[in-house]
Every structure is written in C-alpha cells, then in structure tokens.
C-alpha cells in the first residue's frame, strides 16, 4: 500500500459524490454540482485574466503605450458590457454588445460562405465525362445532399415532385442520425471509461496496494 495524495482522494470523493446522482438526487450530488459551477466560473476568471487581459491588454499598454494607446478602447468596451447590470444606464452597454456581436457575425459570414457553402457545393460538382464505379457512389452522395436541402425548404408547400425528394432526404437524415447515435454512444461511454479508469487504477489500486 502506498500513500495516495490528498488531491487524488479529494478528486475521487468528488467523483463519487457526482456519481451518487445515479442512485437518486441527494445533498452530496448537489454539493458537487454547486462546487463545479462555482469553480468553473472562477476558472474563467483565472484564465482570461492571466492568459488574455494581462498579456494582450495590460502589459502592451504598460510597456509601450505609444504604440498601444488604442487598446484603451477595447478595455473600456469590455467593461461597458457589465453596465447592463445597472438598470438606469444599462442601455449604454448596447454599444459594446453591438460591436462584439456584429464583429463575430461579420467574421462568421465569410467563414460560412467560403468555408462551408462553397466547398460543400463544389463536392457535388461531379464530372460525368468518364463514368466509373465511383461515379455511382458520387451520384448517391449528390442525390443525398440535394434531397436533404429540398427537405429543409420550409417556406413553400411541397408538391408532387418535391414531396418524394423530401422523403428521400428524410431517409438520408435518418441514416445520418442513426450513425450519429452510434458515435454518440461511443463518445459518452468514453467519458465513463476515463472516469472509472481514474477511480480504479489511480485511486483504489494504489490505496489497496495493487500498484
């Protein structure tokens, strides 16, 4: 048997507190849940302060204000976001919010068109000059893409042509969702494997002297 550190014991106990929810809701789980929420928010404070605000805002202004005087503006805009908590002057935060949201929307606009729409549509441009076995597979792919797009067209009532296409689109979507379910099961189980691995191999085994 060898000494397993206090930190490992604490981690193991908090893990068991959280797992206790599986039996039923209880104060241990509620304690772990509340602690998690609080520590997560505190973690955000630590990382944003140390990793972004200090090196990207404070230090550049302190070390070379002449070159970085304009950083005062994003600093003030960031603080302005919090003004919304004050009811009388909460409207002032609209400026900071407008810049923040609109900027990311603008970045998103080009990202979506250039990085999502155009390459995905380009994949469906199939040269039919020489027909091969892969052409049939590609045709299935293309039929799938466009039938799914037809299904998502909700602004007009479907007719005799689009209705069967939409139905085919639904089937493609069902295959995709079934596949996604299979992957999701793998993903969730992996998290449990990690946790049990810690409990068994990093806590129980060393405590009873098996490792």
């Amino acid at each position, binding site marked *: 048997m060898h000494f397993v550190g206090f930190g490992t014991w604490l981690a193991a106990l908090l893990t068991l507190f959280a797992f206790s929810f*599986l039996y039923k809701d209880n104060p241990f789980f509620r304690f772990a849940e509340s602690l998690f929420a609080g520590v997560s928010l505190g973690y*955000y404070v630590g*990382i944003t302060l140390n990793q972004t605000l200090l090196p990207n805002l404070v230090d550049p202004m302190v070390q070379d204000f002449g070159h970085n005087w304009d950083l005062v503006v994003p600093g003030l805009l960031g603080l302005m976001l919090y003004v919304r908590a004050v009811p009388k002057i909460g409207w002032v935060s609209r400026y900071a919010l407008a810049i923040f949201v609109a900027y*990311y929307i603008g970045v998103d606009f080009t990202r979506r068109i*250039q*990085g999502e729409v155009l390459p995905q549509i380009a994949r469906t441009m199939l040269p039919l000059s020489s027909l091969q076995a892969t052409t049939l597979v590609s045709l299935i792919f293309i039929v799938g893409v466009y039938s799914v797009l037809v299904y998502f067209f909700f602004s007009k009532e479907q007719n005799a042509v689009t209705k069967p296409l939409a139905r085919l689109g639904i089937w493609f979507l069902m295959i995709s969702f079934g596949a996604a379910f299979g992957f999701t099961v*793998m993903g969730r*189980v*992996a998290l449990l494997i990690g946790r049990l691995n810690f409990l068994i*191999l990093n806590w129980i085994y060393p405590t009873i002297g098996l490792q």
Partner: protein
Amino acid sequence: MPGLLHRFLALDRRWIFLLVLLSVAGPIIFPVGLPVTVTESTQKSFDYIEALKPGDIVWLSFDYGPSSAPENDPMAEAFLRQCLLKKVRVVVTALYPLGGLGLANQCLARITAEYPDAKYGVDYINLGYKDGATAVMRRLGDDISAAFPTDVSGRPLSEFPIMRGLKSIRDVKLVFTAATGLIGEYWITQVHSQIGTPVIIGPTAVSAPKYYAFINSGQLVGMLGGMKGAAEYELLLSRGHPELASLYRSTKGFTATKGMDGQTVLHGFILLFIVLGNIAFFQERAKKARA
C-alpha cells in the same frame, strides 16, 4: 418468456446503470486486449505526419476540456510523441475556455518527460490560452505575436528560437486540433479556407459524423474520430515506431486502445437490449392487432 422480457425491460433504470458500470469497469479490471482496425481517415492523418521532415513546424491546438479528455488526450499525446520522435517542432495552444489550458500543460509535461532531448523554446513551445477563437485565428493568419505576445508563462516570444522565422500560421506545415465543439470546425472553415494551412482534426465521437462532410470536400487531411480514432492512431504509431510499441504495451497510464475494451462490451449490451426491446415492442403490437 414474453412476460419475462417485459418485466426485464420494465426494471428500474438503476439496474441498467449498474450493468453499464459493470460493463465498463470489468475490462478495466480484467483487460481483454481486443484488436483495432484502422480506417482511411486515420491512416491519411498518420501518413501526412510521417512525411514531415525534421525541423518542420506544426501547430497543436488543445480545443477540448476535461469533459472529453478520455477521447482527446490520447490523440494529442500520440501526435506529440510522433512529432517529437521525428524532430518535428511543435507550437502548442489552447483555444477552448473550459479547461483546454490545464490539459495542454499536463499533456506537454507528461510527453516531453519521455523525450529529455527536446528543449522548450527550441523544439516545442506552449503559447497558452487565448479568448476570441475566430478573432485569434484571423490574427494568426498575419502575425502570431499579435494574438500571442507571450508564451504561457508570460515570456516574450522573441526569447524563443522556435518562433524566429515563424511569423504567421502560413509558415506551419499542419494544424492538428484535438477538439470538442465548434472551435475545431473553425480551424477548417476559417484557417484552412482563408489561409490554406492543412488541418487534421481529432474530434470527439459526438461531433465526428459532421466532419465526414469536410473530409469528402477535401478540406481536411484526415480525422481521428473519438476514442476509436485515437486507438487506431496508437496502433499505427506502434507499427511505425517500435520504441512506441513497447511504451504503449507497458504503460500503466490510460490509452485509447485500453479504453476500446470497455466500449466493445457496453456496445454489445446496448445492442442486445435494443434488440430485446424491439422484440417486446413487436410482440405487444401483434397482441394489440390480434385483440
């Protein structure tokens, strides 16, 4: 028999929870060592990295947190091992706010301890975490030091030889993002599309299905899908580098390959119960139709 089936399926769900626990804990206590088969997207990822030359620079981004560490940690570790073995230089960042930085620090500490010849600031560097995701990526396209003025501990980038000659992300050969959520996708749709840097993604299994569309459109070099993808990558590494084969065989630490045993057992049980559940469902439906 039908009555037994219905009674079994109507059991308190806590019995199902217990079965899940035993299915996963069993293979941890009694490892099985089941085989892993390699898929095309993992093979392409491995081959691309194998083709890199000593001195090339790659970018490893920890875009995940503890909520998916059992899937993403093995991928990041395997990638780091391969790079350090091949003397490919690695720039490490974390863009995921909820825990990416801590995992990057721990992973680097674990893996670089296996390669004492690898020097911080020369062979690898940790630039730490930065808020802003796409804003950061846009800046990386022109000037890395504008987004990351210092390394993770606050030292200016000019102090480090690895950063000399590395002005923007255009100068790296590859971005490897171990990701949960949207940040991994941004590397593909923002960085690769607008800057052209090749990207390999190691998503969680939950988000992996989406990335097949990006593989099909040629926007990704390859993908390591979830824990299975990580296990495949570990297998390829072991085959390609015998020194890593013995490491993976003997390590007491967690590997994706070990985790696949638990996956297999639980998948088997879930499939069995889905089949049994549907048999009961059809029996019920037939009984109602007869009545």
